[in-house]
């Protein structure tokens, strides 16, 4: 780790991290209002820009691009130079990328609150927001892939495979959603392609970034090599090949041609192989080091995320069984699933990774281990007890209510107390995030001279 100073730019990582923190604290704040509106629908109900629909879109786009996107980049600003053993292709470009992304978020999210959005899930930015975001993303792609390609290292580590795949794929995927889906493909054809977009946004942007980062973090924190190169290969290539083909599973039983839907069933089920291989590889790497996990908040976040990832991707193939799909589709179940992935897995990975990186990019030891544990436990209990379990349950209730032919009212009335739980969970998750933020900021402001934390 002696070469930290040489290849990694501390200010860059820190600036990205601060933007990412804003990228979660602001959308999560709106999410609290959103959760309250499920319980008291007239809460702040006369303010147009706080209308439920606009807040929901602000929340989803905010956390996916503003938090996950930017925090991935913050971590990549550290990981990619380390893996490539050279500085970023252009540090200046990285700064510009950040400003363009900030502008894109401000413009895009502002437009959404103002009531201007596209009707494409997870791509609701209007065209001018799209162009800004695409510009920022392409700049990031050039910089990160450029760094990897210019590296003099002999081997290309598995993390880098995922990064290259994810960036190359996502540039094209993003353009596809915002041009073809938005303006060209009609009806069922549009839905098939929207399904690809939704699926590939999580499967070939969020997933490879996150998995790549975990492939870096676990071995480096534990100071030991990844368990099996062969399994790494299997996990990677099955993801690359099968994941992009399952998009239609977001529109089962819709007017999309039936053969596409039928194909999507096995193509989704086979993804189980991806996750089992990857997670097995990580767990075998972790074997014998559980003591270290338990004593390190950073590792605990990451490993909890690994289990959440495993759970999410165990749910996923089941969703594709048509008998399950019939019940859970359109319900809170799917919302719980999506949060298990995006919060339970990826957000935890990023928090854990930032906790590991932060001392290296600030030159200070992390403050208050106690506060880190408090952050972990408020988030974890808040999410699992008050979010995941209640919404999974209300999803089942909604699904079976509808099938039973009862009045629609029942599904809403019976969900009421679960939505109340979700509101509580929001407060706890928010609290955890605030604690995490305080840890980072207090560390950055603390006295210099502390040595690197030996994880």
């Amino acid at each position, binding site marked *: 780790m002696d070469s930290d100073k040489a290849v990694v730019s501390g200010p860059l990582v820190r600036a990205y991290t601060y933007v990412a923190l804003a990228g979660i604290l602001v959308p999560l704040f709106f999410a609290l209002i959103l959760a309250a509106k499920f319980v008291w*629908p007239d809460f702040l109900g006369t303010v147009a820009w706080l209308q439920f629909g606009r807040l929901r879109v602000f929340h989803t786009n905010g956390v996916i691009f503003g938090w996950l996107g930017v925090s991935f980049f913050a971590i990549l600003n550290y990981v990619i130079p380390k893996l490539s053993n050279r500085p970023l292709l252009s540090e200046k470009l990285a700064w510009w990328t950040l400003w363009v992304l900030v502008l894109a978020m401000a413009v895009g999210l502002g437009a959404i609150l103002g009531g201007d959005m596209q009707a494409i899930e997870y791509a609701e930015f209007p065209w001018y927001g799209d162009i800004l975001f695409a510009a920022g993303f392409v700049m990031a792609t050039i910089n990160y892939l450029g760094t990897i390609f210019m590296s003099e290292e002999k081997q290309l580590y598995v993390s880098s495979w995922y990064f290259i795949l994810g960036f190359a794929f996502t540039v094209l995927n993003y353009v596809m959603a915002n041009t073809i889906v938005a303006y060209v*493909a009609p009806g069922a054809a549009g839905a098939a392609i929207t399904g690809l977009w939704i699926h590939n946004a999580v499967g070939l942007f969020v997933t490879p970034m996150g998995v790549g980062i975990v492939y870096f973090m676990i071995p480096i924190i534990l100071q030991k090599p990844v368990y099996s190169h062969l399994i790494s290969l299997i996990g990677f290539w099955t993801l690359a090949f099968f994941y*992009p*083909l399952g998009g239609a599973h977001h529109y089962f039983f819709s007017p999309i041609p039936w053969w596409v839907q039928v194909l999507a069933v096995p193509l989704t089920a086979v993804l189980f192989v991806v996750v089992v291989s990857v997670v097995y590889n990580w767990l075998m790497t972790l074997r014998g080091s559980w003591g270290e996990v338990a004593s390190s908040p950073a590792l605990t976040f990451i490993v909890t995320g690994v289990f959440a990832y495993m759970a999410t991707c165990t749910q996923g193939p089941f969703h594709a069984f048509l008998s399950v799909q019939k019940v859970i589709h359109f319900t809170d179940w799917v919302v719980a699933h999506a949060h298990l992935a995006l919060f339970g897995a990826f957000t935890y990975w990023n928090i854990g990774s930032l906790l590991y990186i932060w001392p290296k990019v600030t030159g200070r030891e992390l403050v208050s281990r106690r506060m880190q544990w408090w952050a972990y436990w408020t988030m974890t209990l808040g999410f699992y007890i008050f979010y995941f379990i209640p919404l999974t349950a209300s999803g089942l209730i909604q699904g079976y209510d509808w099938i039973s032919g*009862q009045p629609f009212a029942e599904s809403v009335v019976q969900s009421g107390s679960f939505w109340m739980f979700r509101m509580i969970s929001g407060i706890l998750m928010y609290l955890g995030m605030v604690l995490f933020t305080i840890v980072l900021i207090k560390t950055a402001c603390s006295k210099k001279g502390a040595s690197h934390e030996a994880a």
Partner: protein
Amino acid sequence: MKRLERFQTIFLIAGIGFFLLSFLGMGLAPWTTLKGLQLPEGMTARTPEEEQGREIFMQEACWHCHTQFVRPVAGESLRYGPVSTAEEHALEIPQLFGTRRVGPDLARESGKRSDDWQLAHLYNPRGTVPWSIMPAFPWMFEEKDGQLVPTDKARALVAYIQSIGRNTADQMKAANDDYRRNFVAGHAPEKSDALLERGHYLYARECSGCHGKTGNADGISAKLLVPAAANLTKIQPSAEYIYTILNTGIPGSAMPHFRDYKPEDLWAISFYVQTLSPETDIASTGSDMSSSLLERGKQQFAALCATCHGPSGAGDGPVGAALVPSPPAFTKLRPTTDHILKILETGVPGTAMVPFAQLPEEDRQALAYFVRQLSEGKVQ
């Protein structure tokens, strides 16, 4: 040589290649099989106003809570209507199938509800559906001379809502008409306290937005419903009458049907609604009663009312049968005297019921007296 060992280009090609594979295989291939779809009969292209409404639907993210396709599973065709087809969506760019149902699917919404229901619902969903958690859109309405009027936005949005799935609207309406014509109330269960309590609960949950908490039609939606919701404190209906209306709704008005509820629940509501109007017997008209008054009322009724309300007051007059909304059956409900006098003075805006304010006071008294006789014996 060094570069080659890293195989980095392979991963780049994989990224681009697998994207193309997925786009070609799972995007373009289904698209080509869908080329050349014709809009089904009755699904005309949208008017500019409907198009504007669709724009608002997208920008307010209504589609985050409402899907627009009926699946062939889970009994959805019973709940919503015919299963969706690709043809119906052939012109939808971008498509609005949706992925989450906080609220019901809207693919078969065309004609399901009256325009005034839709407007009042947009203004505040709790005004028509008290249990609703849908957001209110009050900024699409403005106050003008003490009146609440929808803006062009609200009108465009409702025009769009009424256009969603309009190709099946006639079919759905015909099925509904059939249902209403053939509806038979069947036997009422035994009245009980538990039933009344359930009725009270369901009334508060389903009816209070329009008919008011106490039944006097002062709910949130009062300013927007035409015809106004009936004042349930003044009509003394029979349980069977209410039960029938709850199953059939009143086409031409905002009054929906509630036939998704099980019969027991609807009877419970009916019993409860009966308790909203004070029980008075026929005699207590508040005016002097005499057979001459009754005779006079009878003549006036035959001359002025029977074409619509029917010779016996059953709501089946030659003109009345064709009216939408149809006239009430005085054989099944017994409005209070003051209510009848008020309606004779003002009419019922939004229906064929015109005011009879020019009639001499005495004739109106006589009519009120007569109408209250039409329900056989004591309404129960």
